[in-house]
């Protein structure tokens, strides 16, 4: 059963639906105000909203930079690409090194 009560002029299910908009700063000022009032009065949503924001922030902080390709794989991929490009009628000049 879904826990759903109205606090601060907005229901828990509505807060859940708008959490991403809130986190991304895309909620209207009025919606933002209602969500914040709700979070102050609802432990359930305050706890989950905090966890939601924390995970997204961690994701952005920890994984933003892609890992460089391992050297062997990088060379293999480039060798294959170079071979295929040799038969391409694309840009003139030497094939990529």
């Amino acid at each position, binding site marked *: 059963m879904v826990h759903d009560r109205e606090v601060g002029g907005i229901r828990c299910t509505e807060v859940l639906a708008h959490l991403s908009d809130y986190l991304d700063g895309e909620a209207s000022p009025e919606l933002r105000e209602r969500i914040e009032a709700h979070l102050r009065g609802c432990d359930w949503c305050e706890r989950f909203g905090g966890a939601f924001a924390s995970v997204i922030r961690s994701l952005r902080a920890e994984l933003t930079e892609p890992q460089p390709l391992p050297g062997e794989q990088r060379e293999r991929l480039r060798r294959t690409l170079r071979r295929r490009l040799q038969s391409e009628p694309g*840009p003139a000049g030497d094939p990529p*090194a």
Partner: protein
Amino acid sequence: MPPATDLEDQQLLKALAAGDRSAFERLLDRHEAAVMRLLRALLPEEAAEDGFQETFLSVFRNAGGFQGRSSVRTWILSIARNAAWRHYRRRSGEPRDLLSLEELGLAAGWGGADDPAAALERQERRRLLEKALEALPPPDRELIVLRELEQVPVREIAAMLDIGVGATKSRLHRARLRLLQSLRGGGAGHGA
């Protein structure tokens, strides 16, 4: 005005279109890791390598066709995405999203006694996030990689997916909730 790095990418694309193959090498240097990360989010390793070849061959062939509607990075990721989905659809069919938002929220720990972020604060933050990401369905992984990791603007993702901005935001929200669910080990908890 595009950011400096995108201006450099645009110059490299122009140079490639004019026949400078060394510009292609520079574009590879700048984008290969991001392309591979997106492809791995959608495909098994071997297929990701095929997608990598397909992506950069397309970049090579179509450098002159870049129209500047997005950043070069987004354009290249869009090519990679299309390559991946052609492969994915051949094998798996279209993904489906059947849970209601409330069901999804509950599975993600909404209303649960435990805190899905707590594990992250303890240890192995990066490994746990990667594992949770790997456990997501490919369409969710794709969205999380594009938006949170590559920081592609929502409107550009919407164009890439050929859906509206609102639908993109909605899918992203669900993907984020499923990530929390994945961090919790996939179980649906409800502490009401």
